[in-house]
């Protein structure tokens, strides 16, 4: 009987944090469990690749966790399949004001709120300080500096990014004024802006370009660490992969010279989400509130160098002096929130195919985009949308 009571008062949280981020969340859990009169918080680390499928499979059968940490882009899917619990009932305005506006807005879906933000992730420009004194401010400069530092024979490249993946192409797409879905959620792929963005990506990745072919995440890290990549486009996760001792800087992505707009990467918000099958929802929400408190955010920013979502953290001197956090905070103002809709999830692979077609094989941008658009439409129709 007593044991049953104790069991009921446990809040189980699944996360996929590793390294310092794991240390930070474990410290927070220890802090929470040391408080008097609180439900016990139990952490379970699940590999990132497996977490989403595990949630999708376990929660509807009642085996899942009470809380879990994931990026906001699955919220639409999960809200519609009743895996997530809407939490606006627990939330009031002062609580929302804690967070940077973009990060909390990303967690709303169909006029409900589905989580509280922990951190935000977007790409930015990393550069090797030994090779580049002043990072490029415009795309024209980016190409110019890149040309100077590219030596195909020696396997040296000015810029390395995964140029056949929409996620990494998105900064240029948005910078040229293109988009995948318009603000009303309608598919909007084949536009003159998107064509120009693709043409620029083809220039970067082509024979006169500055980007190596067939780039993967591992290759990108290797080249940057060996000094063979002067600049890379990567996110905060890349910080842990840089060789200790390498002198590098992080700056927001450049302005697109033709349009005068900032290259705007996709914004992903990492949030603590509540399962629709959470056993004690009030208790679970108390944990959410604790993990996203200003004090907790400061700890995560300091211990794990996480770009945390709380406004207060950026008034703290120690966070302000961290050049990486400062750069990502600056980049946040020039990001485009990744749509958290199921529709977006069907757009990735057709768009990637178009990128391969144009960037890797030098195809014409417009037919490739048209083909991608038709494919996405077919998938949307197939899924009854």
């Amino acid at each position, binding site marked *: 009987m007593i044991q049953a009571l104790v069991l009921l008062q446990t809040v189980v949280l699944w996360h996929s944090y590793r390294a310092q981020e794991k240390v930070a969340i474990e410290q927070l859990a220890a802090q929470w469990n040391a408080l008097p009169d609180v439900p016990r918080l139990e952490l379970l680390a699940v590999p990132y690749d497996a977490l989403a499928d595990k949630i999708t499979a376990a929660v509807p059968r009642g085996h899942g966790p009470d809380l879990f940490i994931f990026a906001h882009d699955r919220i639409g899917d999960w809200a519609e399949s009743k895996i997530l619990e*809407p939490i606006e009932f627990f939330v009031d305005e002062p609580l929302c004001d804690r967070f940077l506006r973009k990060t909390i807005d990303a967690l709303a879906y169909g006029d409900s709120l589905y989580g509280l933000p922990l951190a935000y992730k977007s790409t930015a420009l990393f550069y090797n300080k030994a090779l580049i004194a002043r990072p490029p401010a415009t795309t024209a400069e980016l190409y110019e500096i890149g040309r100077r530092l590219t030596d195909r024979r020696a396997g040296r490249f000015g810029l390395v990014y995964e140029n056949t993946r929409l996620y990494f192409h998105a900064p240029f797409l948005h910078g040229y004024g293109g988009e995948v879905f318009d603000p009303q959620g309608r598919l909007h792929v084949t536009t003159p802006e998107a064509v120009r963005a693709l043409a620029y990506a083809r220039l970067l990745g082509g024979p006169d370009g500055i980007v190596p*072919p067939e780039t993967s995440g591992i290759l990108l890290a290797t080249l940057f660490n060996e000094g063979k990549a002067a600049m890379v486009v990567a996110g905060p996760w890349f910080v842990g992969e840089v060789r200790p001792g390498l002198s590098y800087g992080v700056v927001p992505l450049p302005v697109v010279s033709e349009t005068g707009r900032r290259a705007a990467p996709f914004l992903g918000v990492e949030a603590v989400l509540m399962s629709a099958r959470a056993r004690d929802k*009030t208790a679970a929400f108390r944990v959410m509130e604790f993990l996203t408190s200003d004090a907790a955010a400061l700890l995560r920013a300091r211990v794990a160098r996480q770009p945390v979502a709380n406004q207060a953290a950026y008034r703290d001197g120690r966070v302000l002096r961290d050049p990486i956090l400062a750069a990502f905070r600056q980049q946040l103002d020039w990001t485009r929130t990744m749509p958290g809709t199921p529709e977006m999830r069907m757009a990735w692979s057709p768009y990637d*195919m178009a990128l*391969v*077609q144009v960037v*890797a094989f030098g195809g014409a941008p417009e037919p490739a985009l048209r083909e991608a658009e038709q494919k996405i439409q077919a998938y949307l129709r197939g*899924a009854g949308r």
Partner: protein
Amino acid sequence: MKLCYAVGALAIVLAATLGFLRQRNQDAETRALTQARALAADVAARRPHPELAFAAVVGEPPASKYPFLRKRRWLLHPEAARVGRAVDDKDAHDLVAQAQRAGEVARFADDGTLTLALRAGGATAIVRLRPPGGKQPLPWGWLLLAIGLGGALAAAGRGRALAGAAGLALCAAICATMVAGPGSARLLVGLAALPGLALCWAHARGALAGLGRHGFAYAYVTPAGLGLLVLVLVPFAVGCVLGFFDHARGRYTFVGFGNFREILGSAEFYATLAVTIAWTAVNVLLHVAIGLALALALREPWVRLRGLFRVLLILPWAVPNYITALLWKGMFHQQYGAINTILSACGLARVSWFSGFVPAFAANVVTNTWLGFPFMMVVCLGALQSIPREVYEAAAVDGAGSVARFFRITLPLLRPALVPAVIIGSIWTFNQFNIIYLVSEGKPGGSTDILITEAYRWAFERGERYGLAAAYGLIIFLVLFAFCMLATRKRRAAEVT
């Protein structure tokens, strides 16, 4: 056969009971909903109902800069219209929010309590009531009594196969009446089903007696049987059923043959099928050719360090295949891969391996051949040992050259071992997910995808179409099943001649 009758009869009785209960519960739910609707409309019109434990009208939402906070509405109890207070019940709050979108939302709790939120005349009301006579539980007592009575009747008489079938048909007819027929007639009809049950039971006795005689044998088989049931049969059955459903937003809807029509009606399916067949044929051919050649070479008396070579050649098979796949993928990299480095060192042009169908397909085949030939080599080595030396010696005496010996002796005698290996190898290759998914990733443009990776993409990359993916799985199964039947029949025919 007899056991089938018994199981069938039991299943029918159970289904009939469940159907009967569902119908009754539905009737009760409809009555409760009608009552709750009337009450909610009253509450929305601000007419108090003090007998309700929970009733409220929703007021104006507070202004907020956050759109989602506008849903945090304030409720007014109809009795005290001036006292505004927030709902302190999350379920009620969420239900009201849903009702404002959908018009009406009702939810039955496990204890039978009904909560209904309703939009009526510009206001949204929510009521909670406990309808009299909640859900009907399953009448286990009656069920057991029916089965026991059937058993007793069966013990009294002996039945024939035809009578058993007739009993089963009778049960089915009765079951249909019970589910679809008018309420009062159902119980009587249910009782009338008992003789049919009795007939079936009589047939089951013979089978049960057999179970008793070979008890030990069945006990030995049980663990493996259970494993097979849980790991193979249940997923297979679920997959078969899933193939007829469509999945969207966590809900499954029955679409009949819709998924199959969609797959078989698209030109892409036939292209993928052709690629899959070509992939399987090329691979198996290479596996057998290389495996057989190496096995023959290892048999030659002049080969030294035979054991070492044997181990080295089996090694690719021992390494987990996804590791091998990732290694080969790295070697095929255009700029930094080992293969292009060697090519350019030899003065040849670098190949962009994943930019065209032919090189990408070739890269996949090379990787899979590396993984696949050791199995065929091991099979051939084993089979070669069993060919007696004397046959070769006799042939040599008769003047047969090495080519003639190979085609007249080695190949025919290897056949019984090779054919099953080729069938197994074909099935493995046909469904070789890892290589395609990891090496070429379907590039360029999905053209090197085979059926199994295509099924995966439908399930996990193109909007969770689990039903369509399951239908793909069924089609793959049917293709392989047909292939196996054909191959086995050919083999039998060959053995007869």
